[in-house]
């Protein structure tokens, strides 16, 4: 609590005009929205009445009026080239998920939170951005990280167990994969705010899960982004569970997308297993954010097909029948059916895509299957820009210990050789 002295007359004057300015700003925003979208500010911020879905689970393109779009919530269908490229990433993403799960079973990876079933979200989150834009992923978003161009093995290093991360965030503008839930959302806000101050024309997309929307940082991030009017897309993969806890225990809001309006930003719901709809919604969101429309919250309705990680036993808290239901909504089969029916995908193309996926899987097997050598001195190398005297002392202690161990083992082997 700040206990401040009485405001001076001057300060009171200043705060009055601030308040007046804020009202002006809202009026201006409302006018802008009406001019651009023909709807009220509130209707713009509230999600459409239904989720946006373009291709149904059977792989059929839905009629325009059945896609869930409304005036002001209209989404152009992405072009053929974009869809084909996205489909390729989708197939690669699935292969990567399954390869990694196999590597975990073989003890080659410490842990892997698979996005199996959520690959359409992963691919769309990466592909809607252009060069220079930033992505802020979680532990479950390794496929999105890879789809942004990060080397697959580097993207998985965090799970290999030899270091906490494997890539340079600056190289591809991809933040570290964050485990403390929703902490990364505020980093995304910060990058966007700095970009605004520096005059950089970028959009930032930040990811989190449904359970994570309960954390305080989620709410702080949304509010900051709205108050500073920043080009940040908050992309929530609602996969229905936070480990064992179903969505109904997290939120009783009409939808997670509805949380947006409370902060003064727009929200939208989309079928998270429909890659076409995802790209449509995110492409437009990124475009609007780039044009200065402020932040956007997108909730993707999807499902975590496997356990939370390999260490989890999902049978303790959900029925197999539920999983089976979602099997029928798989993002890959519906996309394949749709593209084939459009004559965009033939066997030849399919084979090439499968080959690409195999190539990436092999890269992972080779990169993660080998025993990586670790350097114990790395413990001390990166704590600060320059190690402190205390760290230098500790590093010397460890070096001495290892040298003594080595000579002892050497002596033992000599002994054994005699």
């Amino acid at each position, binding site marked *: 609590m700040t206990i401040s002295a009485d405001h001076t007359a001057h300060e009171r004057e200043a705060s009055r005009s601030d308040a007046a300015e804020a009202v002006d700003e809202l009026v201006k925003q409302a006018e802008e929205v009406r001019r651009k979208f023909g709807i009220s500010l509130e209707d713009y911020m509230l999600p459409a009445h239904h989720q946006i879905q373009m291709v149904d689970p059977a792989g059929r393109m839905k009629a325009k009026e059945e896609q869930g779009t409304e005036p002001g919530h209209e989404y152009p269908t992405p072009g053929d080239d974009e869809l084909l490229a996205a489909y390729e990433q989708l197939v690669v993403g699935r292969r990567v998920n399954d390869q990694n799960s196999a590597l975990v079973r073989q003890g080659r990876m410490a842990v892997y939170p698979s996005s199996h079933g959520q690959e359409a979200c992963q691919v769309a989150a990466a592909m809607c951005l252009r060069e220079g834009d930033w992505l802020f992923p979680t532990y479950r978003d390794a496929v999105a990280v890879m789809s942004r161009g990060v080397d697959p093995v580097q993207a998985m290093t965090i799970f290999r167990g030899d270091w*906490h991360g494997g890539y340079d965030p600056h190289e591809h503008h991809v933040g570290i994969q964050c485990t403390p839930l929703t902490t990364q959302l505020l980093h995304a806000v910060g990058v966007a705010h700095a970009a605004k101050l520096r005059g950089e024309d970028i959009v930032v997309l930040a990811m989190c899960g449904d359970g994570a929307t309960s*954390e305080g940082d989620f709410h702080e991030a949304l509010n900051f982004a709205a108050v500073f009017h920043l080009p940040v897309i908050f992309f929530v993969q609602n996969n229905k569970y936070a480990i*064992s*806890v179903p969505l109904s225990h997290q939120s009783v809001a009409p939808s997670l997308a509805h949380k947006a309006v409370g902060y003064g930003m727009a929200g939208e719901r989309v079928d998270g297993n429909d890659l076409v709809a995802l790209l449509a919604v995110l492409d437009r969101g990124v475009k609007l954010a780039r044009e200065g429309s402020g932040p956007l919250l997108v909730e993707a309705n999807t499902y975590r097909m496997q356990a939370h990680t390999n260490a989890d036993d999902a049978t303790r808290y959900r029925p197999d029948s539920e999983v089976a239901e979602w099997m029928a909504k798989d993002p890959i089969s519906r996309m394949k059916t749709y593209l084939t029916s459009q004559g965009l995908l033939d066997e030849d193309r399919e084979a090439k895509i499968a080959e690409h996926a195999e190539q990436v899987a092999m890269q992972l097997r080779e990169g993660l299957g080998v025993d990586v050598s670790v350097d114990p001195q790395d*413990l001390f190398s990166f704590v600060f820009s320059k190690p402190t005297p205390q760290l230098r002392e500790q590093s010397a202690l460890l070096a001495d210990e290892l040298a003594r161990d080595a000579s002892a083992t050497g002596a033992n082997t000599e002994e054994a050789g005699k």
Partner: protein
Amino acid sequence: MSPTVTTSSEANGNVSAATARAAAKAAAVAEASGPQAITLAKALNTAMSDAMQEDPTVLVFGEDVGTLGGVFRVTDGLTATFGEKRCFDTPLAESGIVGMAIGMAMNGMRPVIEMQFDAFAYPAFEQIISHVAKMHNRTRGRVKLPIVIRVPYGGGIGGVEHHCDSSESYYAHTAGLKVFTPATVVDGYRMLREAIDSDDPVIFMEPKKLYWSKDQVDLEALRAEHARGEKSTAGRAAVARLGTDATLITYGPSVPTALAAAAAAAEEGRSLEVIDVRSIVPFDDETVSASVRKTGRAVVIAEAHGFASVSSEIVARIQERCFHYLAAPVLRVTGFDVPYPAPKLEHYYLPSVDRILDAVDNLQWED
């Protein structure tokens, strides 16, 4: 408390005290066959279950503690037995969990809450430091907060980042928080019951690498001991092994390592006493000082970073109280002052038997 005694009406959420007592009896009968091998996780689970049976104001809540029974299964079966009003999942927000526990404690409840992992308690830091620790002092004792915050902590399980921190020093440094950490199965039961009985808030640090360690335990005897009101662990360290030449002082996950070091030293003809601190706050100066005065030499061991830590505090207290009895400076074996490393590097970080023996060798035996 075995979930097998649950009936479907109990699982519905509303369970009468009588039903709960009957369930307890059934379970007690099943367990009344003298000492049996149980894990630390089971001992903690039983402590909560017994406390819930005896006192309807004891509640358990947190992330994944209900249906799943906790990611370490420490709350397994509690929802099934006591219903969703007594053991329940909250929305995923640690600050919310602790803040709500404060309000519930102000209104007659005794919350036992779980932070899923050491590092995931940090979002709750403000509620813990600014309110849990200070409420009693601020209100001149008018508001008591009988809250237990259970924190699985420490490494050695090949966990990825944020799953292996030793965070005890943050809490111990904060005035107004008791900090307990059991290292044996029996202490797990006793100390958690005492923590739940405590009218002051307790940060209950559970060494996660010891969750599956087993001991022969007579639960009925422990229950009887608790019923008699014997507070054998409250604020007291334990002498985990008697010795004469030097004292190893440690707690939580490092206790088995220190015992192994003492066993190895014994083979080399050196007799080491091992003190298990158990209660970091309040700290048992008496037991530690008595041992160090007897042996004249001491090594303090902990997984946490050494700098500005519980281990530094212990060393300071020993030299304040035992200076004239010391034959050598008190040494420490701790984690390095670096972020907890990735699984393939943790072995270089953790206190090991060899490192402890090295420290013992350096206690100026020649002078």
